[in-house]
């Protein structure tokens, strides 16, 4: 009997373990039975991945000679090591998705296929005039266009209208200066007694509703730089994070938490997501559509406000981009190009994930009733979207400024931006010098 119990315990524990490990299987999908087999890798592990599953399935149905195996991997931890190993070993996927800012690093290595001929100016099916010139420029390396954009996503504001109502502020209120933004955030921040952050009786230790948020640092940082016509480096290869204007700009954001008590302390993704339902202004990107629409009853998507130079509405933008490996050839290359053209045409279907499409005509065709956030963000990004500066070691550079901000924002107000930016600047300068 004892042995039976022991066996039962072991079986249950093993089943639990296998159950956990089987979660990864959801990240692999196979469609179609065609003889031309394509392997497609991406990092769409969130709800947007489900939308992509639908698109790939539709492609396989429309192209019966092709079958597609799609594998989704965590962007930051699994995707790039696996992709690099595949490229180095000469066994990469047929199609892979990255952002535009990662392209230069791979382009410098010479591992990306020239896709210029997929665009209409070279006789291809994708009308080049229908793609934002800013995206085309970002995807051009040594005169060749190396990718096909899937979307045109970026930063914005999500308003929780119930929390705006609770503070007596109209939900569509959008600040146009830093002072206005602080005033708005203070009026929206409420303590347990219903006092807002402008009240003398306000209790900062007992906040039940936050006015605003500091979430993913990079989009906020790059947007702030763009709105002040600044950058983390200049064209001469000088790192610029020691610039007092940059430090002051980012300190203003930290002060929202540490001085004005209108934003909660950033402390990890899970905690912040949990808190986000108590944030009147949730600063996030177009990709937050699924989360917001599922967790907030009455919400509104608005363009990111201009908080820098007067009239400068620049906002950080990015794009998911399809790339092919340099080795691609023959019928698999032809099938891969068909896949890319199909995905480019299916931008409005992809926009159901909340991501604005890459094609201008598709952005303009979005019905706000059907695409309530993507249409707002898409129009703003088309007009004001700014891509990050590219560099052959962009990933290493990004880690320096992102880590610096994490050290400050996550220090419980003990570390200021002036403490971390000079150090990050020195590191970025070393990276820049390595290639100058």
């Amino acid at each position, binding site marked *: 009997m004892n042995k039976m119990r022991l066996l039962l315990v072991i079986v249950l524990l093993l089943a639990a373990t296998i159950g956990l490990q089987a979660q990864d299987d959801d990240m692999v999908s196979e469609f179609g039975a065609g003889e031309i087999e394509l392997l497609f890798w991406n990092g769409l592990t969130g709800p947007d991945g489900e939308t992509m599953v639908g698109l790939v399935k539709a492609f396989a149905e429309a192209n019966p000679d092709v079958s597609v195996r799609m594998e989704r991997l965590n962007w930051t931890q699994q995707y790039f090591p696996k992709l690099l190993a595949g490229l180095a070993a000469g066994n990469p996927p047929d199609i892979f998705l990255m952002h535009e800012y990662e392209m230069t690093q791979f382009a410098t290595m010479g591992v990306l296929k020239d896709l210029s001929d997929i665009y209409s100016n070279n006789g291809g099916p994708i009308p080049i005039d229908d793609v934002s010139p800013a995206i085309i420029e970002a995807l051009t390396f040594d005169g060749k266009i190396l990718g096909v954009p899937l979307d045109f996503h970026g930063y914005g504001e999500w308003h929780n209208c119930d929390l705006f109502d609770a503070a007596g502020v109209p939900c569509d209120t959008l600040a146009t200066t830093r002072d206005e933004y602080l005033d708005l955030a203070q009026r929206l921040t409420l303590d347990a007694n219903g006092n807002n952050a402008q009240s003398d009786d306000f209790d900062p230790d007992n906040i039940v509703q936050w006015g605003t948020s500091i979430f993913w640092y990079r989009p906020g940082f790059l947007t702030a730089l763009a709105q002040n016509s600044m950058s983390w480096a200049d064209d001469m290869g000088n790192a610029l994070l020691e610039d007092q204007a940059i430090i002051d700009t980012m300190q203003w954001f930290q002060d929202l938490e540490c001085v004005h008590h209108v934003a909660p302390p950033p402390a990890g993704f899970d905690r912040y997501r949990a808190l986000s339902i108590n944030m009147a202004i949730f600063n996030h990107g177009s990709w937050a559509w699924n989360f917001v629409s599922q967790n907030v009853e009455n919400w509104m998507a608005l363009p990111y406000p201009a908080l820098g130079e007067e009239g400068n509405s620049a906002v950080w933008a990015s794009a998911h981009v399809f790339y092919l490996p340099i080795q691609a050839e023959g019928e698999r290359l032809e099938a891969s190009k068909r896949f890319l053209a199909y995905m480019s045409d299916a931008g409005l279907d992809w926009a159901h994930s909340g991501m604005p499409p890459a094609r201008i005509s598709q952005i303009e065709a979005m019905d706000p009733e059907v695409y309530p956030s993507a249409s707002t963000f898409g129009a703003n990004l088309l007009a004001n979207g700014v891509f990050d500066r590219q560099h052959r070691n962009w990933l290493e550079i990004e880690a320096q400024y992102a880590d610096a901000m994490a050290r400050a924002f*996550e220090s419980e107000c003990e570390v200021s931006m002036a403490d971390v930016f000079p150090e990050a600047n020195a590191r970025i300068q070393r990276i820049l010098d390595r290639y100058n």
Partner: protein
Amino acid sequence: MIGRLRQSLSPEKKSAAGSWRTWKWYVGNYAFILPFMLLFAIFILRPIVASLQMSFFRWEIFGPKPFIGFDNYDELLNDDLWWVALRNTVYFAFLTSALLTTIPIFIAIALNLPFRGRNVFRTLFFFPYVLSASVVGLVMRWLLGQQFGIVNYLFGTVGIGPIPFIADSDLVIPSLSVITLWWAFGFPMLIYLAGLSNIPQDIYEAARIDGARGWQMTRYITIPLLRPIILFVAVTQLISHFQVFAQPYVITNGGPAQDSFTVIFYMFRAAWTYFRMGFGTAMAVLLAVIIMAFTLLQFRFGGRRLEY
């Protein structure tokens, strides 16, 4: 037969026959270890030499591979992130090794006592060791999460917390150590159980006759006789936990800020995210030297007066 052969041979011939027999003896013995040596040379020695060699080059997998001498080491020693990573690694390695060297002794002693269900407990205590790092990471993130974690929920029912186990700068390394204790506990426990079974029972009987009781026997018989095993566990644990990677990688991603950023994590990031293989292998070489130094110190101070 051999005796007769020897008698019939001249001294020179006898010497030649001896050499031949000695040579045959060596060949036979080396033949037995040859499979291991071959595998060792291919999968251990060759990568070690290649890593050492690679650390003197700027190699980014694709493109040219210029020789840069000690530049990678120079950059590393002037890199504040390396020192942050090393500090975190040393803290984690010593704390975790201390926990995993001491606590399993007492559990092993308890599980060595005769009682019903002993094997069930031995199996249960060993079970976490067979889990993969990703499973442990997922489970612990669910358990220790500040908002939705079960541990904080239970603490909350008695008015404690929530405690930011993996989101607080001061708590993150101790939390990762305790997670590792739960996960890796089985191996040292098993080693100690094997060591305990080798302690002759008559020593305990003699002590009992002399009036020794429970704790006295543990203090003056069990632990001294386990000293070689304790040294083995301490050395292997320190070596193992200096190479910590999976726990911060899966559970904290090196955060909050860089408070759980470790050397192997940095090495992985340098090599596979920044594509700087030469710089990454320089880190590996330096870490190997540091581990070797600590291991020698352990043998120097822990290996004295061992009773075998």
